[in-house]
């Protein structure tokens, strides 16, 4: 199975700093011989540039504001010049503060709608912008995105949970419409990972405690590498005939009822 990523090229969105899941995916791809290009925007851009310099190989950072049509156009034009693009990681989301943190019943319409564009719709825009170059990939283009456990309501995730459910539906429709171009679209549902984004969710600590206590395989909020393997699989040729799928990388939490019995003694390291 060696050489899955040698000579491949990937566009990675959602790197803020070294804690970002996307940073760890980019680092792993580079370690396997791939070329990566990052995107960021606004005030985050300078942090992303510093984080890009900390990758095994320094990576270019393109400006891409997920709410700006002209940025998608510019990225599409840039990518059209590349000799190849094998895959894309969509790892961005946004929710206004009043759409998170147990204020679900009183979130105003403007706030509830605001997060939808970046967190769900942008997957369509990203896919549409890059489909022409992804369609040229010799083993099919791969689009991967990040979601959470949408099979239940996660206290405090609130409208972000709604956006993630929408994202899963967007991914299915993209799988439908881009499959004929050889492009597959899949998501990874990650367990809670301690990142800057997570710091915006006030219940994050308690959710992470629950995963670390009850996930059958254990969990560690400080170990983003637990999610990376699932993303790499979906970006690789191994997933050549998989599309419209959500792959859980959550220690198995989604499959069981926590808080009753078995997955036992709490271990601060999350390892068992």
């Amino acid at each position, binding site marked *: 199975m060696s050489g899955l990523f040698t000579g491949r090229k990937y566009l990675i969105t959602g790197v*803020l*700093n*070294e804690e970002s899941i996307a940073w760890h995916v980019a680092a792993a791809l580079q370690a396997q011989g791939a070329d990566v290009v990052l995107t960021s925007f606004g005030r985050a851009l300078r*942090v992303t540039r*510093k984080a890009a310099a900390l990758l095994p190989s320094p990576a270019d950072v393109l400006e891409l504001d997920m709410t700006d049509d002209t940025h998608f156009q510019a990225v599409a034009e840039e990518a059209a010049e590349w000799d190849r693009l094998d895959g894309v990681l969509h790892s961005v989301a946004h929710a206004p503060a009043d759409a998170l943190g147990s204020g679900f019943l009183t979130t105003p319409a403007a706030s509830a709608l605001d997060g939808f564009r970046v967190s769900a719709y942008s997957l369509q825009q990203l896919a549409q912008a890059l489909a022409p170059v992804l369609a040229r990939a010799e083993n099919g283009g791969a689009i991967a995105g990040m979601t959470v456990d949408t099979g239940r309501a996660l206290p405090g995730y609130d409208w972000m949970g709604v956006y993630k459910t929408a994202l899963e539906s967007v991914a299915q429709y993209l799988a439908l419409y881009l499959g004929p171009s050889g492009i597959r679209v899949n998501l990874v549902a990650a367990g809670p990972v*301690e990142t*800057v984004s997570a*710091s915006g969710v006030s219940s994050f600590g308690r959710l992470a405690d629950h995963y670390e206590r009850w996930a059958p395989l254990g969990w560690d909020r400080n170990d983003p590498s637990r999610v990376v393997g699932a993303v790499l699989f979906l970006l690789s040729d191994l997933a050549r005939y998989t599309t419209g799928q959500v792959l859980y990388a959550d220690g198995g939490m989604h499959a069981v009822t926590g808080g009753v019995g078995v997955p036992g003694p709490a271990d601060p390291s999350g390892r068992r």
Partner: protein
Amino acid sequence: MTSEAAPSAIRDFINKELVDLGVEEDALDADARFDELDIDSLDVADLMTSIKRDYGVVIPRRDLVGITLGQLVDRVVSERAAAVQEAAEAG
């Protein structure tokens, strides 16, 4: 990881980064609480990435709760010393 590691140099580095992020210079007191500075989570990520880049030190965000600027400098100094020693032993 080539930056000068004297405590005063690390203090000056952190202060300069904070000023770049928009913090008023007269707020930069060793006793000032880090989480009471006028910065947001993006600024914190920016500063921590700079510290990692220049000193090779990672300070988990949860350790920043309630910490003062002076304690942050001390933490970077001690972790930097540990990182340098580890590198020396490995190399």
